């Protein structure tokens, strides 16, 4: 979706302010939000792409002015409401859910959520090929940023087939697709006044290409 999250090339936010020695969490509630997001994710009701869509699908002015864990909290509230988890009669037992237990935390984090899958078809492109990204503007979740749509780039790495977020975020299955690292010239993306020695790389799925 063309939401507040799709920030590449947007102007006016001012300089980047480094923080050398600040704590990871600026307020204690931020730590609780991180923990709650991970614990609720471990229930297995939703996936990482659905979580991202829940965060980005809100007014851009909110997304771009809130502190990041505030966005995570709003996304978590959205998902909890979608699944009716706080309905009066709902609880873990009635929903058939088992909470993440302390003795399984480290193993769960170590396992993570690998996204590579068996390919459904051979890859259409090889390293060195030039691809053109589609000009698409889906209202749903996509990982093809606006600034890289309708541009030519070069395949530099083939990562195998990975879960396709545009489907997975919307309960349409994993639909694994070939994932490539594509190298774009900054001058192709932004114009001739940019440095000819600057390049942008992005990891893009085959359905994003013409």
């Amino acid at each position, binding site marked *: 979706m063309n939401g507040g999250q799709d920030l590449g090339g947007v102007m006016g*936010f001012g300089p980047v302010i480094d923080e050398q020695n600040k704590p990871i969490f600026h307020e204690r509630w931020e730590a*609780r939000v991180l923990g*709650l997001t991970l614990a609720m994710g471990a229930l297995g009701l939703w996936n990482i792409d659905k979580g991202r869509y829940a965060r980005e699908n809100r007014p851009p002015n909110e997304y771009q002015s809130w502190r990041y864990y505030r966005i995570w909290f709003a996304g978590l509230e959205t998902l909890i409401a979608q699944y009716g988890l706080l309905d009066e009669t709902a609880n873990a037992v009635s929903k058939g859910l088992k909470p993440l237990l302390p003795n399984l*935390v480290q193993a769960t984090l170590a396992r993570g959520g690998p*996204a590579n899958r068996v390919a459904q078809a051979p890859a259409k492109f090889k390293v060195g090929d030039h691809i053109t990204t589609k000009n698409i503007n889906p209202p749903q979740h996509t990982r093809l940023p606006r*600034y890289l749509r309708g541009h030519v780039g070069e395949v530099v790495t083939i990562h195998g087939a990975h879960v396709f977020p545009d489907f997975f975020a919307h309960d349409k299955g994993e639909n694994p697709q070939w994932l490539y690292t594509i190298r774009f010239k900054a001058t192709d993306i932004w114009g001739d006044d940019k440095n000819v020695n600057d390049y942008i790389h992005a990891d893009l*799925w085959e359905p994003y290409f013409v």
Partner: protein
Amino acid sequence: MTDHSHDDHHNHSEGSELSDTALRVRALETLLVEKGYVDPDALDQLIDTYENKVGPRNGAAVIAKAWVDESYRKRLFTNATAAIAELDFVGRQGEHMVAVENTPEVHNMIVCTLCSCYPWPVLGLPPIWYKSPPYRSRVVIDPRGVLADFGVSVPDDIEVRVWDSTAEVRYLVIPERPNGTHGWDEENLAKLVTRNSMIGTGMALNPEGLKS
């Protein structure tokens, strides 16, 4: 649920009073525990892991090893996920790792313009600026301007490669080994490796920088 809070701008700090957001987070946590979705000890362990146990010291150990051990360096560029796992850094947000190397000719920077993708097992949780609009918007269109914000200057004829983490691949920048460190062991080399040098918004410290 609807949302009425507009007061916690990412560049502002809050006072000591519990904010509206803090109260709502506490209320939600209480409900989720009461209803059995969240085990409170597991919740504390999740937070403790990322607040106190996983952080950029992990990545610094990887870099230092790559600086002294040529065969490890090769494994890191062949299969970064496996090479990093040799040091027991594995799991969530590091399932598919790629190492990119800074050289006298190339400077790498990592970003996630669409959210906050970051290699947790080696760098821990991202700093607030990495997740905020100024960095995410500008590093892809003006990487050298962003470097200037960090006090870093890269000559115009050096290639700058920005890596936008749009999928589940996570990137780790391998900074250049500083001069004047010949013969140093991994433990001491790791002290020169800053978080920002592994994102690409900084360089590794030189021996004089370490003293200060």
